[in-house]
């Protein structure tokens, strides 16, 4: 493992963070009355689009995993379609989990679904970019001693920290502070975003500090 790899990782992560910051500021030039809290759903969509776009671009430019042997157009198209289906499936899966955790079943369906979309953007999209539509590889990455590169390691950290951020975001909801961000699902989406950003910041640093202990079979 070289330091250049870690540097590349850091830069890509900085770009991701930058895209989130852009999604906060750019829309206010085009849309009137735009703010994260009041037009939350709009922001959710924009943020999701931005992060997905940046992830795709980075994947195409950096190419962290070994390029697949087959490169025919039909293969690429089916792969892309499969990715889309996986993304949708993960959105629905998250939606169901939220409802099981106590989200309202009928009211605020759109809000809950967009929350599922943004969480999928933070977790599923990087997985799809890095590992492709391959559930077995996903399961491998998220188990002990399952990672094979710093990219997978950082993926593990950002995904887990997004989930933890989402989970912690649910805690302020019952408190009686009467703040606008305590409304479902704003605190959870903000928690997910903060968790994702924290994961993006932490993972290069963590890998840098533990570079002596980390040995990947392929590197």
């Amino acid at each position, binding site marked *: 493992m070289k330091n250049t790899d870690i540097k590349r990782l850091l830069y890509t992560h900085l770009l991701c963070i930058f895209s989130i910051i852009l999604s906060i500021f750019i829309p206010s030039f085009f849309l009137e009355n735009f703010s994260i809290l009041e037009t939350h759903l709009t922001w959710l969509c924009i943020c999701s689009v931005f992060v997905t776009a940046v992830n795709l671009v980075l994947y195409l430019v950096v190419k962290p995993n070994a390029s697949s042997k087959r490169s025919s157009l039909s293969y690429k198209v089916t792969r892309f379609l499969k990715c889309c289906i996986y993304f949708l499936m993960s959105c629905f899966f998250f939606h169901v989990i939220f409802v099981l955790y*106590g989200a309202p079943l009928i009211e605020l369906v759109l809000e809950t679904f967009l929350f599922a979309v943004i969480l999928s953007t933070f977790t599923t999209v990087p997985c799809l970019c890095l590992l492709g539509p391959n559930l077995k590889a996903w399961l491998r990455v998220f188990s002990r001693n399952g990672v094979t590169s710093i990219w997978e390691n950082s993926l593990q950290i950002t995904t887990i920290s997004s989930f933890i951020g989402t989970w912690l975001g649910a805690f302020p909801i019952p408190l009686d502070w009467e703040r606008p961000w305590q409304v479902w699902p704003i605190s959870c989406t903000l928690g997910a975003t903060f968790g994702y950003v924290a994961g993006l910041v932490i993972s290069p640093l963590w890998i840098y500090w533990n570079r002596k202990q980390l040995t990947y079979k392929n590197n």
Partner: protein
Amino acid sequence: MQKISVLLFLAWVCFLFYAGIALFTSGFLLTRLELTNHSSCQELPGPGSQPWGSQGKPGACWMASRFSRVVLVLIDALRFDFAQPQPSHGPGEPPVSLPFLGKLDSLQRILEIQPHHAKLYQSKADPPTTTMQRLKALTTGSLPTFIDAGSNFASHAIVEDNLIKQLASAGRRVVFMGDDTWKDLFPGAFSQAFFFPSFNVRDLHTVDNGILEHLYPTMDSGEWDMLIAHFLGVDHCGHKYGPHHPEMAKKLSQMDQVIQGLVERLENDTLLVVIGDHGMTVTGDHGGDSELEISAALFLYSPKALFPGAPPEEPEVVPQISLVPTLALLLGLPIPFGNIGEVMAELFSEIEDSQPHSSALAQASALHLNAQQVSRFLHTYSAATQDLQVKELHRLQNLFSKASADYQRLLQSPQGAEAALQTVITELQQFLRGVRAMCIQSWARFSLGRMAGGAALMAAACFLCLLVSQWAISPGFCFRPLLLTPMACGLAGTIVCAGLLTTTGLKLDPVVLGAMAAVGSLLPFLWKAWAGWGSKRPLVALLPIPGPVLLFLLIRFAAFFSDSFVVAEARATPFLLGSLILLLVAQLHWEGKLLPSKLLTIPRLCFSASAGPPRRNGTHALGLGVGLLLCIRLAGLFHRCPEETPACHSSPWLSPLASVVGGRAKNLWYGACVGALVALLAAVRLWLRRYSNLKSPEPSVLFVRWGLPLMVLGTAAYWALASGADEAPPRLRALVAGASVVLPRAVAGLAASGLVLLLWRPVTVIVKATTGAPRPRTVLTPFAGPPTSRADLDYVVPQIYRHMQEEFRGRLERTKSQGPLTVAAYQLGSVYSAAMVTALTLLAFPLLLLHAERISLVFLLLFLQSFLLLHLLAAGIPITTPGKYISQP
């Protein structure tokens, strides 16, 4: 001997817990001192003469009587809005929809036609809003405290001074009819009484019809000075159906006819009081201090004009106990000694006399008497105990002496301005309200020291249990040395404490003595634990549960310190439970226990320890987890609101089935409930059959096979009777009533006998020998006394094995010549769990009977959850006995 020492040790632990709980509750549930002093006719509460010299007149104490007779109609749980007049609606508007609104028409009519004769108040009851506490308050004029709330079902005679006692000592005849709670509260105080049983809350009509039978004849006979009729129908209707039920409308209309009949029969010197002792919640319950529970109706009517002014737009709000001094002075009786209520001054104004001055003077004199009596009570009370705040007491006494002096000065100069009189009235009212506020504050004040001490004692006892459970695992552990020193020290502590207390002349409090004994016995134990603590053993080893579970428990515990989380408990707890479940699944996956190993043997991977082939795959565990989440979410549908949460609505499914309107819905729900019961039974039986427990001829297994279906049958029949009792034909009424008493008792009896059987023979293992003895033999419970070795503790199974070995050794030798002998033992896998499941099922039935019918669905969910969770936990344990091995979550 060993057994006895274990039992003694357990008894000691029990004592520690009880001492802690007693200490805590003695600080938490404060009692009020009950004074036995009485007011008397001859002795005025304070210095001063009456403005019109009423003393000496017959039938007048303290003040001239304004009414010679009173009819008190106490309608249990008559909430204020039941009696509130409804705005009349035009022909186009729809009529009022709620069944309890606008049913007391006669009140409304009287209020409209005779505004000077009648008045409706909103009376505020003090919590606890249970009937016995309200009766005490309504006759003594004091505030029953929390500790009284527990004794509602074993009520005792009132020792404090009260209205009934004053009436009896003045030679008035009190006739009572209705709720038999009064019999215990006022034994022998009534000249004539008709008591009816109040305990069966499902019975709507016995008490009311009994009263109606005697009410008008008694009234017409004229042999009474105070007539009390306590109707229970409205309250019972609330408990059984809730206020939003057509039955409530019928009941209230009946009450309306009663009031109508009474009004027609009233004579000029008689006052009619209609009062509700408390209100009810939207589900028909009471006891707490929510707005709906404490607001009750109070209606006064007299055939002669009583109220001077125009009726107010909104009915006035008065404290409920105001009625006590008011009634006492109106009837020309001394105010009960312990009363802290404030007289309703409006009732003492002079109607015939047009001068405003004399009216105000009469009000002031009533208030002054009231204030004198309250001040006398405060003096006596503060001399007897030190509960009341000294500072506040001084302030109030100064206020009173000032008001009293002003009043005396006004009496000296009768031409005093009316404004000065009004000032005096205001001052007296301020004093009375101040006293009431102070008493409410003092009698509901907690003793923090005792509460903290009790909590610490209980925490120490928990720690002791934890330590001992760790020590007891080591073989050859002996309880006796553990017992002797603490006991000796505890005794010594008690004696020293008792000696100290007696020498200093303080009262001997058994609670404090018990706590001292507990602390004394705990100290040497803790000292021993501290001394024997090796540095090599880390503290973490003590923790019995895995880390994440402990973390969630801690969060749950911390949530109790946040008010918002307590309010949102119904959402926060399932959230945490769900998180725990998903975390368990994720952890299992992380450890690599869920995936078949071939999936993971991708080249380039290194697995330091791939421990054997995993037994269950990931989808199975995920399915279990999602099923659990689903169960938790479904259980949230049966949400019951805690007290004092205004914006919370309990699930309508928690009300009893009898309150469901519409036959079809009722039948469907009934079917669902019985279905849940049958499913519960079937699940337990299937589970036992799967682990082949049902084949054993043990009595407890036989009970599961035959007794449980009987219990299901009994419960279902009882529900059918309870939900449809009112639709039964009149001929069968007695039969239905009898059956609805017998059936629950039969089910509870069956459950108890099943538990006894289970305790007698908990092990359901059967052993079969194919040759020699074809008859299956059962193994007696092999666990006799404390274990002697490590292996015994870990498993019962080896013990059974050893037992079997010994059992067959003799026979083997005998039958050696006959060929090989095959021995088979069944149900070893579920040694613990079979007994556990049976016990839990047996316990579930009496609990089911205590709840409303539809709770059975929740019980089914609970059992499903525990099955799923235990399977999930079992999935992560490499070597395990299948099925249940710990108790319910």
